[in-house]
């Protein structure tokens, strides 16, 4: 603990200006903010872990949820897209630390270009996350929610592949339309109706003999248990709702909490990336204007750099606990 020793006369100690921890005020406060923010994120991730342990047998399998890659429609590509996002963020961290390094040598032009690359990387990441959210919200196959709140997903009994509702549900040409508040008697409205009604799904199930369903429940190998035709028919009689995609109340992927945690944690992280980009842009403009050149210190770049690396650090954990484990 070498730092607790202060040397010099007493006037010097009490008149300020000494830095026992060897860090300037601004940098230290940035670190303290990061520590508290790290604890906030740990709280979220630990809560996620709590719910996951609580519902360990019914938790959705991430590899089956995040399967999209741009321009590859219908191709099952788990992991690749998040791997790409992770690389973008790590690389933007590298350019950030290179900007900090160039700042130490007062090389203004290098700082400008490295910060520019960092901002671009950050924007690509936020955009990627928006795309990921879009796919998650839109859903892919659709499912049916039972009276118990559990989800039934449909698959082909012969191939074992998932089947979208649109591929087997039987249109019944009902009269039901979305109710808007300006038309309802009691000014009540509802959310958009799903593309198919429960009756249409049941009719489609009866017409297609090779459609079976699987529950949220996993067997001991972590595979979801597939029901027989009879079991499926029995469960379907308790269906209350057709679910397509995800929101905070229903989601077609399985356990409801999964979507809630996904939105909350990646959303909170995405918001951090977004604000990081904004702060980076402000500092970037200052660098161009020569503010730090005149100050003969690029410490401000170092401070936003700390924040940016922290965002990367959090993503490393989110990546592990949402997509890998």
């Amino acid at each position, binding site marked *: *603990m*070498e*730092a*607790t020793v202060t040397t010099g006369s007493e006037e010097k100690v009490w008149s300020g200006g000494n830095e*026992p*921890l*060897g*860090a300037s005020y601004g940098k*230290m406060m940035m*670190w303290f903010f*990061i*520590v508290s923010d*790290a*604890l906030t994120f*740990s*709280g979220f991730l*630990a*809560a996620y*872990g*709590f*719910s*996951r*342990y*609580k*519902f*360990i*047998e019914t938790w959705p399998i991430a*590899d089956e949820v995040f399967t999209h890659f741009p321009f590859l429609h219908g191709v099952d590509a*788990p*992991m*690749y897209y998040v*791997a790409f996002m*992770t*690389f973008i963020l*790590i*690389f933007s*961290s*590298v350019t950030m*630390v*290179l900007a*900090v*390094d160039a700042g*130490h*040598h007062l090389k203004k032009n290098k700082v400008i270009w490295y910060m520019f690359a960092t901002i671009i990387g950050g924007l690509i990441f936020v955009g990627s996350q928006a795309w990921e959210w879009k796919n998650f919200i839109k859903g892919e196959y659709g499912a049916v929610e*039972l009276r*118990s709140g559990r989800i039934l997903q449909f698959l082909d009994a012969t191939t074992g592949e998932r089947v979208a509702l649109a591929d087997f549900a039987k249109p019944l040409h009902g009269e039901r339309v979305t109710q808007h508040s300006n038309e309802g008697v009691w000014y009540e409205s509802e959310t958009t109706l799903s593309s198919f009604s429960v009756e249409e799904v049941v009719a489609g199930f009866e017409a297609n003999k090779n459609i079976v369903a699987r*529950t949220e*429940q996993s067997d001991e190998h972590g595979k979801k248990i597939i029901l027989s035709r009879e079991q499926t028919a029995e469960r379907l009689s308790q269906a209350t709702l057709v679910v397509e995609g995800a929101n905070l109340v229903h989601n077609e992927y399985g356990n409801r909490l999964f979507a809630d945690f996904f939105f909350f944690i990646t959303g909170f992280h995405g918001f951090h990336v977004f604000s990081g980009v904004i702060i980076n842009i402000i500092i970037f403009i200052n660098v161009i204007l020569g503010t730090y050149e005149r100050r003969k210190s690029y410490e401000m770049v170092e401070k936003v*750099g700390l924040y940016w*690396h*922290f965002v*990367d*650090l959090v993503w*490393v*954990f989110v*990546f*592990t606990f949402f*997509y*890998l*484990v």
Partner: protein
Amino acid sequence: MAHAHESNTKRIWTVFGIMSVITIVEVILGIVRPEFLEGHVLGMKMLNWIFIILTLVKAYYIAWAFMHLEGEKGSFRWSIVLPLLILIPYLAFILLVEGNYIHDVYHDGFVSWDF
């Protein structure tokens, strides 16, 4: 400034190389999920242990190299890292044990899967 202003460019690219390799290994393991790593060690799948350890290695490199903790004074470095090292495992331990307990309570007969 606690650290000298020599150029760290080489170190930065080395760390980037290490982190890239780790991420690629993680992604490959995540896609393949080899059968022999599915076994349980200390109550968790071997594969999950590998993922978590590799994540901690990456976190170490981000904090030490990119955030330059390795160049800060020891007292400053540990006043940042120690609270996190103590509080986060503590919180995770408590919540995971509790979640597991509630799972067992549900599992042993309080929730039916028949509807």
